[in-house]
């Protein structure tokens, strides 16, 4: 299977920001203009993550999401502040193909995974996991790495699969935005624990980091943010490098 190269847009509406430890630090552009740029470069997917709305109990900013969806002819996932079936339905109607749920499922009601998977299909429901490393386990965090949940990441990954999630979007609270490589053990353990696709995020600082996590953990996709937003690297640079390293990717 071709490993998907996915662009992650961390959004503090109305801008994409550079997050370090999930804190939005600097504006890097608008979601729609950046999504278009990466689509044209050959991204396999775009995921838009609103990194503040859940924490501030704000509603989802639908306009910018719709505008972003309009630029894309590739899959578009949306996460952040999703609290109801109504939110999910509206996101699909304005052009999202997948929704990524975290806080609400972890803190309020995990059955939103079951309900939404039954209505929208498993493949459309992504569970976003924010993992924080402790001595000998990882704990699920919510609200963009701010709130502890007490849930074990591996157990939760298995549970969301049982509940009907079609994909896991795995982020690391410790490694996100630091560009020092991925939490390889975390990625591998989660990929091995479930039979649904796992997208790994948080840590791509060099081309080698991406190759390393693909070879070691065999995720279905790798999500990249800072490396693209700042380092003049294009999706094609990444794909060419991976192809030359013997890793299968799409055109």
């Amino acid at each position: 299977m071709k490993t998907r190269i996915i662009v992650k847009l961390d959004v503090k509406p109305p801008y994409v920001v550079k997050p370090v430890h999930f804190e939005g630090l600097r504006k890097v552009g608008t979601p729609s203009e950046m999504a278009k740029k990466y689509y044209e470069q050959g991204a396999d997917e775009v995921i838009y993550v609103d990194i503040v709305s859940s924490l501030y109990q704000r509603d989802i900013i639908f306009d910018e999401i719709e505008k972003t969806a309009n630029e894309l002819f590739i899959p578009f996932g949306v996460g952040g502040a999703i609290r109801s079936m109504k939110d999910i339905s509206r996101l699909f109607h304005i052009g999202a193909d997948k929704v990524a749920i975290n806080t609400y499922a972890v803190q309020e009601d995990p059955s939103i995974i079951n309900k939404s998977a039954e209505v929208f299909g498993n493949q459309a429901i992504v569970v976003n996991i924010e993992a924080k490393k402790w001595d000998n386990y990882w704990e699920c965090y919510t609200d963009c790495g701010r709130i502890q949940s007490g849930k074990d990441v591996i157990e939760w990954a298995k549970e969301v699969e049982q509940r009907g999630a079609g994909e896991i979007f795995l982020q690391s609270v410790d490694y996100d935005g630091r560009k020092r490589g991925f939490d390889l053990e975390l990625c591998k353990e989660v990929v091995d624990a479930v039979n649904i696709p796992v997208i790994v995020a948080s840590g791509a600082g060099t081309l080698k980091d991406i190759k390393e996590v693909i070879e070691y953990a065999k995720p279905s996709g790798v999500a990249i943010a800072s490396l693209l937003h700042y380092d003049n690297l294009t999706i094609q640079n990444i794909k060419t490098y991976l192809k030359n390293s013997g890793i299968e990717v799409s055109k």
Partner: protein
Amino acid sequence: MIVGVINYGISGNIHSIKKALEKAGGVVKIVNNKNELAKVNKVVIPGVGSFKDAMAELEKSGLLEGLKEIEKPTLGICLGMQILSTLGYEYGKTEGLNLIDAEVKPIIVNAKVPHVGFNTISVVNNNRLLDGLENEEFYFMHSYEVVNYTNILSLTNYEGHQFVSAIHKDNIYGVQFHPEKSRESGIQLFKNFIEL
């Protein structure tokens, strides 16, 4: 020539499909009921949701009867292809539109399911729908597959498991992948459908 995109109510990514059809040069109308179905020349059945819910929604909107007897060129996408079949097994056993003699079953493969990502198609029967698209990459996102042996247009291989990625019978077409999410290849497929 107007292409009608079926609106399922709660589920269905009609927005993406409308946009891609327009990019391919189509004039698009969203079809919400039987009267609107009568006014379009071609039909696209989108594909987000589960088999059971999709059939329930079609029944609720009154579109079910019209679609069961459809003779206009019709293209089902992903779940929209699956419901062209006789029977589906997602969340229980559900009758489909029965336009193509097929059943929809879970993908059984020694790999991750759903099958998600870009994959290539091998055309096994030439048809204008897939003109120029042999071995092109399309985006797949599905946990179920259409089991059919007689109406196959293309096959796709997922980690050693071969499944039907496009079907065709008379005026009825179905693709398991998402043309609206498959870059230029998808737009080309929509152009081919519009020009059929």
